[in-house]
């Protein structure tokens, strides 16, 4: 089968690519577009390291066919900071040491941002259940949950 031509918007920029029909969004991001911030931890939607948003919805990019991105707006970790200015979540993750090895961090941040976009004042339980699809083996989640809660509070105070 010949390759598919896909037009999409990634992190606010128009993007075109060719892909095989069976290629996942994650494979295209990583192998065709050099956006390696999204990680493959499992390839089965269990670890969340490949989390992206598609038209604002949080998904595992390993479970999405790249061809499905036609006409959609994709956001990845690479689009989260504005040049030199980190997103408040990114900044808080650094300040509070909410990462150790850092492999889950991109997915964790994308997921956390999707939570705060939807719910600016989550409880600890809400954070924990929202992030239950993002595995971290290093931190025991403690500092991650605190960083998300602290960021939410900081954003609310600024607003």
């Amino acid at each position, binding site marked *: 089968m010949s390759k598919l031509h896909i037009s999409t918007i990634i992190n606010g920029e128009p993007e075109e690519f060719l892909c095989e029909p069976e290629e996942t969004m994650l494979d295209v991001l990583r192998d065709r577009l050099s956006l390696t911030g*999204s990680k493959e931890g499992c390839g089965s939607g269990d670890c969340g390291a490949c989390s992206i948003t598609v038209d604002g919805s949080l998904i595992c990019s390993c479970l999405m066919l790249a061809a499905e991105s036609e006409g959609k707006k994709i956001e990845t970790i690479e689009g989260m900071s504005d040049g030199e200015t980190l997103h408040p979540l990114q900044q808080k993750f650094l300040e509070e040491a909410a990462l150790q*090895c850092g492999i889950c961090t991109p997915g964790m941040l994308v997921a956390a941002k999707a939570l705060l976009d939807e719910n600016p004042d989550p409880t600890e339980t809400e954070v924990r259940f929202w992030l239950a699809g993002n595995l971290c083996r290093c931190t025991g989640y403690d500092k991650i949950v605190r960083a998300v809660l602290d960021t939410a509070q900081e954003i609310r105070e600024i607003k």
Partner: protein
Amino acid sequence: MNDANNKWIGKRTIRPDGADKVTGQATFGADTTMPGMIWGKVLRSPHAHANIRSIDTSKAESLPGVKAVITSVDVTNYPLDKPVILGIQDMRWMTRNVMAREKALFHGHPVAAVAATSQKIADQACKLIEVDYEVLPWVVEIDDAIKSDAPILHEFIEFEGKPSNIAGTLEHKKGDVQTGFEEADVIVERSFTTRPVHQGYIEPHACLVSVSADGRTTIWSSSQGQFMVRAMTSMLTDIPQSSIRAIPAEIGGGFGGKTIVYLEPLATILSKKSGRPVKMVMSREEVMRASGPTSGSKSTVKMGIKKDGSIVAAQGTYYLQAGGLPGSPIRGAVGCAFAPYDIPNVHALGYDVVSNRSKVAAYRAPGAPIGAFAVECVIDEVSEAIGMDPLEVRLKNAAKEGTKAAHGPVYPRIGYYETVEAALSHPHREIPLGKLQGRGVASGFWFNAGGESSSQVNITEDGNVVVTTGHPDIGGSRASIANITAELLGIDYKRVSVLIGDTATIGYSNLTGGSRVLFASGMAVTDSTEKVIVSLKERAAKIWDIDPEAVDWEDGYARPAGANAGMFDPLSLEELAERATETGGPIGAGSQLNTAGAEGGFATHMCDVEVDVELGIVRIIRYTSFQDVGLAVHPSYVEGQMQGGAAQGIGWALNEEYIYDSEGKVDNPGFLDYRMPVCSDLPMLDTVMIEVPNPKHPQGVRGVGEVPLVPPLAAIRNAIYDALGIRFYGLPMSPPVVLEALEQREAAE
């Protein structure tokens, strides 16, 4: 050293690699490419145990797009009769682990590998390889493997004079347990089992290797030691170490599981054969089937205690699964089991048992959680038997400075006693428990390690600092190195850049493992930085034309040491860097050390559980870790180690296990069915860092990374007893197991 005057040591600075990691720019094992790169894939055994009669690769080789196919004949052979030791590994086993040679020893064992222009073609080519197997009877469980009529994995391994699956033993003895037990008022003897669990790093093994026509080899890979990668790859490919440059990628978790190679030698040979850079990445399923895990075990522990709470004798026997090739962590199990206690009579014995499972790899304090689980459960029971609080029993028997441990050493100043004291007086202990809730405690020990580390500290021309060490940073060690260097030089930590060198740019450095990195590299960096300070003083002395002894280094400036030295304006690091050429050339110093004095790490954990008796789910509702951390150079990352270890322990205790089907094949090789703790499973994990500085380290550092995984298993088991009145003797205490126990009790009543 961690006093209020410290500017950087003990401060929660931003890690040097942080910005890259929160923006997705950090490059991990699978994140790089090279021009002309092709893809490698591994063909794995579909049988748990089989002789390999022959392999025909001709069809695969003729598939368009296939550039190379390899089997064990392409990998350096080390005959079975002579050990070839590298660190704690034996290359006889390593060569057979990366590629099956005479036999496939487990389902998923590599038997061939392919490199092709696409992953798809490589997959197709693997299917075209024809392997003629003679399927053999197989065995996966310890009890089956040590039966007299068990299928034997390796005929050359003998135990008690005949071929056996018991590949080795280790014994520690102190005093005379027989006499000790005679003195006891109460003796409790119990048997336990634990299941194999995987390290569970989120990043699968990955590498990219390029071999030039002249044999010069570049390896980019995620590992816990670029020098280990270089040495093992060299030994498995016959390419000299001087021709191999192993570059450490950022590592996405290891926990011990990346202290050996799996893919690097294969990619190297495929690259050499094809003349193209070869990238190999394991799938999660491959990770679960063919890398790690740590051992499953069975054990029996017997303890004798007097009514006054003194433990007079202790005996432990441990059988640990090694997987298909010898080398289970019996040293950690038998060495660490009784190490927190001053017991006059101890006998600990371990057996290394091979069976048709993937070869075990190190996992955070290898063996120690298994050793401690049985001991800490029995301590709970002897404490109950004499009516004494289990923490008081631990306090009474706590090892201290001068205690001779059964595994050999006489302890210097250690902080075990303090961890128990802290637990006894902590508010956690006073929180009332509700219905079906319980509280448990347990302690643990890990050896910690020193060994070889190198560092280079260079002053840049603009007066800033670049530090290079040789250890992959797995949990924030660069941040701690920046703190130490900035403290010694008296400058802002942001002026210190910390990098991990590759094997061509920094001297030999042993693994990121054994909780050794900050201990050893902190020593090397301290040594290098002190040399730099000597040089800076000499340069100031030259400029001022005074004796170097008359120069002090303080807060980033050279100053005359008192009025007698002369009246000179202080010289900053920037000024001295600017004048480096005229005062003797570039400013920098290196150190290559074999460090010693790591000394042990101790921890005590307290855990509250609530049992859902309808579903059998044990929920952790409160958790506090008390640990002697020596000195917390960067407290956030010390807490992070304590929390991460506790979380892994919770997974091991409650849910994680390898499940085998009737064909000897892992039935749960993915994160859905291999159930690691997720965010909603856990509460906040509280930490109490107790600083008893290691007297043998310039900053007082003790390893902190591994001991946090030692106490949780028993702490949770003891808490479940407190909640339900049921004592479990096997892990995991998963919902079906808990439900069954509840049903059995109901039936008995």
